[in-house]
Each structure stands twice: as structure tokens, then as C-alpha cells.
């Protein structure tokens, strides 16, 4: 039997028989690409001309002064085309789809980021595209639905289950089970059955590879600690990927929601609420009840409220290589406000989780220390959520006025 992508006890490939052949093909294509150096250089050149890789490394001078400890650097994945690190994985898989000779892609999306990235990739590569999105997410992330449709994708509203990300994943699998011959499922994070966790982490490792060179060049040394938010785990795996062999502390920050003792959070590795389980095709820590039914999660950041987490990260928690923390909604909004005012940067709500933890730890480090935060995406996409988080009266009046205008027609 072939390698099924285990990382310690986590990972594997728990898939319906009907998909086994499709996964075998995918594993093959992935392994071929991975051992073919021209694939990576094609990938790097595509990302350099279509997105803006290498994304810059920004020295956050004002935040550094503000906290008076470690020098703070920010990796600018927010400057990517479509506004987040998601596009790295998506464009890489696009190249794989081309190699496999398929003509259609499907994807799940929660925050909408991954869906927009996939719709963009499909437009660029000339694939047809269907994106599954939970009804709850469609309602709160309408701007992204709009863009996906304009990019030519069909957006299917998933009305099953809790109508969020995990249900969209289930629905995407259902599509795949039916249409695997011509269709590739572009999974959006380092989760799911093998080879997705490994493959997505590999494609995202472009972040860490760049960041390592950039930090060395900008500060003359390796970072003491690096911080990334953890939804499924792809941006974290991407950044960490540049530093596994170094003496660098890796910190993953999950959604603490209303607090780890509130049960309204999405913390699978930093809280004791999650337990080992098998769902959506792989084994990891899930937020589930005693029977193994998945629980509802909560986060102010739509991209972090997932019930599972990368099996690779689950293993790295067990081995102690990565430390996991959680940031609450309130802390996130505060860190976001500070970052905007001090640096003119607008991190996505997801990314702001990493900022929270870095801000907690920066003061206790010395000015010889360097810390690196992954700004996985930009906050523009979150205006509806961020405006609500700040309870902005001008924004509300604007929306109400706009609605009156629509109603009148």
C-alpha cells in the first residue's frame, strides 16, 4: 500500500472508494511535480508575473518602538493578487491541473478568499469553476460571491449542515465523487486527505523560503520567533516551512473567539476542547462532541472558524516543534486598530490573530531579537465585519441609505 501521508498519528486518507483512483492520480501528479525542478521554477515565475512574489518584508518600525522589545517584521502576503496567501496554493494547483489535463476545478470556501482565488485561477487557466460556500458564509461574505461570479465561477450555496466551511467541503467532495474524471478539487488549506496537507504546505512554503532570505538580509539574523494565524494551517505551514531546520520558535495562533472557556471559539490545538478524530478524509484534532459529531465554532474571522486543523500541525504540536496560542475576538480588533494606526497596514482579521500574540510577546524580548509576523491577507475584504466590530455609525448610515435606494427602485 502506498504512503498515505501520515505525520505521527495524524493525516491519512479516509476517502470513499470511488475517489481512490482520483487520489492516486493526484498523488502521482504531485510527486512528479515535486521531483521535477522545472515545476517549481514555473510556479515561481507565474507567481512573480501574475501575483507579486516575492511579497515584501516590511519592518514595522513604529510598532517596534511602541512595544520597546523585539524588532518586528511583517511578511506581506496581503499584497498578493486577490489579497491573501491563498493564491499561492491555488495557482500551484492550477499548474497541476494543467499537467493532469483536466478542464474543471471545484473548491470550497469559507471566508470567500479561497473561492475568489480559485475563480481567478480558473479564469486565468481557462478552466470552468464551481465554488461551494455555506449559506451562512454567502450571507456574510457577499462581496466575495459577487467577485467569484464576475470571474466566471458558479457559486453553489450549501444549505446542508451548519452551512459553513466544513459543509462546503463535504459538498465539494460530493461533486468530486461524481465528476472526478474531468474535475480537480482545489482544496484551500493544508487539511483533507493525503496529498493535500503536504501538497498545500509545499506550495505555501514559498512564503517561508522568501521570508528567511528577506529577514536575514534586512536584520542580519534569523528571527527569534515567527507568528502565523491558524485556520486550516496553510499560511502557518507556508511560513514555518522556511524555518523548520533553524533554531527559530514557531508560534501558531488560533481563533480564541469569545474566550477558550466560552466554547465559542475555534481553537483545536491551543485549547483542551478538541479531541482526535477522523472526518473530511483525515485524522487530526477536531472540535467535536463525545459522539464524534462536529461542534459549531466561532471566530470574528470567517477564515479561522474551521473544526479541524492541518494534521501536520497537529503532529508538530505533539512533537513540541510548534507552540500554539489563541487570540480572542476582542484582542484581534484591538491589535488591528493599533496596526492600522501605527503602520498603515490593514491585516485581515485572520492575520490579526498572529499580530495579537506577537504583540503580547514582543515587549519581553530584547532589541537584539527579531520577530516575524505573517500578514496572510488584507483587511479590505473584511469591511463589513470590521465596520461592525468597530460599530461604525457612518458605515451603518451608508448601508441603510444604499438599501433605501435599492428598495425604492
Amino acid at each position, binding site marked *: *500500500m*502506498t504512503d*498515505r501521508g501520515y505525520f505521527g498519528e495524524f493525516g*491519512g*486518507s*479516509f*476517502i*470513499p*472508494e*470511488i475517489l*481512490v*483512483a*482520483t487520489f492516486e492520480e493526484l498523488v502521482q501528479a504531485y510527486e512528479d511535480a515535486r521531483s521535477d525542478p522545472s515545476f517549481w521554477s514555473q510556479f515561481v515565475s507565474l507567481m512573480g508575473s501574475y501575483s507579486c512574489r516575492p511579497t515584501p518584508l516590511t519592518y514595522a518600525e513604529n510598532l517596534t518602538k511602541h512595544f520597546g522589545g523585539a524588532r518586528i517584521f511583517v511578511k506581506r502576503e496581503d499584497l498578493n493578487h486577490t489579497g491573501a496567501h491563498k493564491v499561492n496554493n491555488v495557482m500551484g494547483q492550477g499548474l497541476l491541473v494543467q499537467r493532469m489535463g483536466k478542464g474543471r476545478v471545484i473548491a470550497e470556501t469559507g471566508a470567500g478568499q479561497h473561492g475568489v482565488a480559485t475563480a481567478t485561477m480558473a479564469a486565468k487557466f481557462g478552466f470552468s469553476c464551481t465554488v461551494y460556500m455555506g449559506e451562512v458564509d454567502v450571507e456574510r461574505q457577499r462581496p466575495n460571491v459577487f467577485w467569484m461570479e464576475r470571474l466566471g465561477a458558479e457559486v453553489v450555496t450549501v444549505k*446542508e*449542515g451548519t452551512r459553513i466551511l*466544513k459543509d462546503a467541503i*463535504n459538498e465539494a*467532495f*460530493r461533486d468530486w*465523487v*461524481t*465528476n*472526478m*474524471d474531468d474535475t480537480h478539487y482545489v482544496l484551500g488549506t493544508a487539511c483533507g486527505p493525503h496529498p493535500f496537507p503536504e501538497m498545500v504546505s509545499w506550495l505555501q512554503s514559498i512564503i517561508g523560503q522568501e521570508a528567511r532570505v528577506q529577514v536575514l538580509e534586512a536584520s542580519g539574523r534569523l528571527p527569534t520567533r515567527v507568528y502565523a494565524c491558524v485556520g486550516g494551517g496553510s499560511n502557518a505551514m507556508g511560513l514555518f516551512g522556511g524555518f523548520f531546520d533553524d533554531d527559530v520558535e514557531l508560534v501558531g495562533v488560533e481563533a480564541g473567539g469569545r474566550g477558550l472557556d466560552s466554547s465559542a471559539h475555534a481553537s483545536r490545538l491551543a485549547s483542551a476542547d478538541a*479531541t*482526535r*478524530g*477522523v*472526518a*473530511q*478524509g483525515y*485524522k487530526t484534532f*477536531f472540535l*467535536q462532541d*463525545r*459522539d*464524534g*459529531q*462536529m461542534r459549531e465554532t466561532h471566530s470574528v474571522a470567517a477564515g479561522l472558524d474551521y473544526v479541524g486543523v492541518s494534521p501536520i500541525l497537529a503532529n508538530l504540536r505533539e512533537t513540541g516543534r510548534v507552540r500554539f496560542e489563541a487570540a480572542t475576538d476582542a484582542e484581534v480588533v484591538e491589535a488591528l486598530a493599533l496596526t492600522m494606526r501605527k503602520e498603515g497596514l490593514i491585516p485581515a482579521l485572520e492575520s490579526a490573530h498572529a499580530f495579537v500574540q506577537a504583540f503580547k510577546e514582543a515587549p519581553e524580548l530584547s532589541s537584539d531579537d527579531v520577530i516575524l509576523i505573517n500578514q496572510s491577507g488584507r483587511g479590505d475584504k473584511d469591511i463589513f465585519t470590521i465596520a461592525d466590530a468597530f460599530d461604525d455609525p457612518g458605515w451603518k448610515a451608508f448601508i441603510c441609505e444604499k438599501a433605501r435606494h435599492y428598495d425604492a427602485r
Partner: protein
Amino acid sequence: MMLADEIREKRQERDILLMTHIVVGYPSFDDSLRVVEQMVAAGVDLMELQIPFSEPIADGPVILRANQQALMAGSTVERCLVFAEEVNRRFDIPFLLMTYYNILFKYGVSDFTGRMAAAGIAGSIVPDLPPEEAKDYLEAMGRNALEPIFIFSPNTRDERMRVIAKHAGGFVYCVARKGVTGAETSFSDEFAAYLARCRAATDLPLALGFGVKSRSDVDFLRGQVDIAVIGTETLRVLDEHGVDGVRGFIEGLR
């Protein structure tokens, strides 16, 4: 008697067996019990009892919704096991549990199979557990003399069919086509070739599922497979005509 033999024996009397499916606790435990009653009275030969799971990745919309509603109505693993025990005591056909691997995993595979055996269940179908991931499961099933039902699909290659067959017990569940439960299947030449491949790969009886919904479907399968599986369609009948519609529907199939 081993399940496979039991099936072969029944096949002496009937040219095709019927296996039906319910989601335990949907729409309620009382209704589930009455549906089993009706099905058995209508002459069903085997039954799948699906323990609902929040992420039924291989099921189509109808069964998916039944899973969710059963969970919302309070179906727990414990109550499902008690239910399984009860129907097995009251009705004289083989019952199988169908569910996703997390239900067993979370319960503890060893404990779970122990409970199955104690309840007199014949075996189980776990659609997201391919044999490669099934080491613990297979050991525990073997220890408890339970039949692990595995699945063939049209794109399972011959070689792999033989590997799967080696691990399988009771019968092999052949999915008729790509896709999830509950969609249309057209029974083509390709289909005959597929069944021939299934036959060649195993001596176990063959069940065919996904899309069987009418007497003509069953007629078509007669002589080709041992068991016709009616899954989604009974749920549709149940939803449309209530518990009392089920018996007539089943009787009309054969």
C-alpha cells in the same frame, strides 16, 4: 452461520435479495422502529442501520438531511446501539450498521465492535474507511466475528478489487456509478463489464447500490447480483407517504 453463507442460502429461495437502509432516529426512534417492522413484513432480506454523523461525506442530499435531522432530534450513538440491539432481538433478518469512521474511532473501535457483537449485529459498512486505513478496525471486527463490508466502485482497478476482497466479509457492496447516494444510474454495457470485474475479483456475494428505485431496476439486476440495495428511495417514500407507505413500496419491488 457466516453472513456470506446465509446470503447464499437465501439466494437458493429467491433470485434476488433486497437490502434496505434507514437513518436511525429519523424522523424519530419510534418511526424508525415502525419502518423496520414494515420492511421486515414486506420481506426485506437485510437491513443497513445508519448511525447519523454530522459530516456524511459520501451521502447525497436526501440521506444527508436525514442524518442532520436525526441528530437534531436527539439521535446519539448510544441510542442507536440500543435501537440496533432491539431490532435485532425482535426481527429475524441480518442487520448491519452503516456509519462513518469517526463514530467508531471516537467510541473506541474495540469497544464499538464489542457493542455491535453484543447487539447481535452482523457487520458494518464504513464508507470513508478504505482497507488501507482499516487495520484496527479489521482486527477488532475479526475478534468479534463481525463482517467488514467493503466497497467496489467502477473505477476500482482489478488488482485493487482483489486486495479489497481479501479484507472483505459478508458481501461486497458495489456502487453502480460515480457519485453520491440517490442520483440516477443508467444500466449500460459498461455496467455489465463492471459487474463482471466485480464477480471475477471475489467469491463473496455482491450487493449493488446507488440508484435502485423501482421494480424494473430490481428486475434488471436479477441474476446479475445477489442483493439489490434500496437506500435513498425508501427515504423519499417515507418523506412523501409516511411510515405506512413503506411496506407497499417494498412489496412492489419484487
